């Protein structure tokens, strides 16, 4: 019990951020029209590509003789980058069409 309390106390700031972010996430997209569901999902998909930062840290910290960490880290960086770049470009392509249509009106 004490350990659990201590864990919560040690991470109180992070836990606060997590809880506030949960509510923020709900609020921020609460009133999205269904037209934008797909682009929003795609945009959110790109944003969780922020996991790339973890991959960069893993890669950067790997000792030069630790081949498993090097290879896995390298894959992680590639996969994370794919998620970020692909995600944002696909979203932009979807939204580009909405914009073009607006101009013609």
């Amino acid at each position: 019990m004490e350990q659990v309390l201590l864990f919560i106390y040690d991470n109180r700031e992070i836990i606060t951020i997590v809880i506030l972010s949960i509510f923020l996430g709900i609020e921020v997209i609460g009133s999205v029209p269904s037209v934008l569901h797909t682009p929003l999902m795609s945009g959110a998909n790109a944003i969780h590509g922020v996991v790339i930062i973890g991959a960069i840290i893993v890669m950067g910290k790997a000792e030069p003789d630790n081949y498993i960490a090097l290879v896995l880290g390298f894959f992680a960086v590639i996969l994370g980058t794919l998620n970020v770049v692909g995600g944002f470009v696909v979203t932009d392509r979807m939204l580009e069409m909405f914009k073009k249509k607006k101009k013609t009106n």
Partner: protein
Amino acid sequence: MQTHLLEIIYLIGSITFILGLKMLSHPDSARKGNLVAAAGMILAIVGTIFFYEDADHNKLGNYIWIFGGLIIGTVAGFFAAKKVQMTAMPEMVSLFNGMGGACAAIISIVELRHFFHHYNETEILGSSYPLLRGDIMTMVLGLIIGSVSFAGSMIAWGKLNGKVKDFAFPAQHIINIVLMIGVFALGGVLMFSGITAAYTWMYLILFVALVYGVLFVLPIGGADMPVVISLLNSFTGVAAACGGFLYHNSVMLTGGILVGSAGTILTILMCKAMNRSLLNVIIGSFGGSSTGSAVAGAAGDIREITMNDTAVLLSYSKKVIIVPGYGLAVAQAQHVCHELEKALEEKGVEVKYAIHPVAGRMPGHMNVLLAEADVPYPKLVEMEEINPEFSSTDVVMVIGANDVVNPAAKRDTSSPIYGMPVLDVENATTTIVMKRGMAKGYAGIENELFFEPKTRMLFGDAKATLQKLVAEVKAV
């Protein structure tokens, strides 16, 4: 100094993600929102590479590897995203989502191995000391959620591009629940085991999580894939947040949790659009084994109509509503469809599009496709608004849509799609259904609409048929 700067960069990154999501949910600012979030992401990545220091003030190394990975990923991601057909967008999103999940899982594996190795070597705690620590817990969670998201997304991707078929297996719910509980139980076992056994538990967790991801998505019907992708999307968000927890990295934490919660809400909104609960989607295995009942219900004669009659009928109507579906998208017929609309407008016919919330393969997918073909925005009318208009409509053209116009959703309580809101096309004077053949829709059920006395069938490939129809209409 540099670490302080990095914290501020991360703060800016977090703000851009919040702003980006906010702007993405409004049509006017959506595109800018995407760019704002992308800018924040680039800032966070560059900041991490150059300013990151660990607890002992060591900077990152292996720059060649980092930049190599970034370049390969950027080039591959950019071209994949630029080249993909608009119709294949949903599976692309699923694929990228899987990449993110795999990335999170790999981070956990490397960090866990690092941790085990470190503790084994220093032997501060002895080899049998339980690994009951918060950071181990987040690593294990990241491993589980990331792996499930990766495996699930790959199956969803395969299903959407037709490589993987729906597959229901006996006792699937029980097996899946056991697997889900099992994988978390294994995580608990790892935390209470000694360091020597931990490697084995870690790989076992990875294996079970991958199997669970596959079996979790496999029985869910293709029609529910958007919901599943959205759900897996929020999973990956949580997996990314686990990484943020591990590194005490604020931008990973806020980004991941934001996507986790926003993704969950989006998933629920999508379920609502189909009038189903999330639980129902996950355990219902829609379109799988439970659809046998509806087949017997609808049968009878269908009435075909010729191309020429269709053209005449359309040209002398006052009001035509086009109901586009995935069939139109697959045939790449959205541009020809727009031509038909223009040809009819020149003859003074009022043309509108009825957009079902889940038309296509994802909510909003059809809007994107028609926008690509330059169809003006005010012509795309959402379901609630257009449903009262059908009774004053002369002709409804259903192009490659099926389940979203099935009246069984309103009448037949035994139908698997009962309760799903549908377009009331049967209220129009005449309904013309343009289809390749009598194949069933994605839900795998018969459509009573095709046998209604007011319905006419026009068989053929959507694009070829529409092209001929445009010529005929112009000739009338």
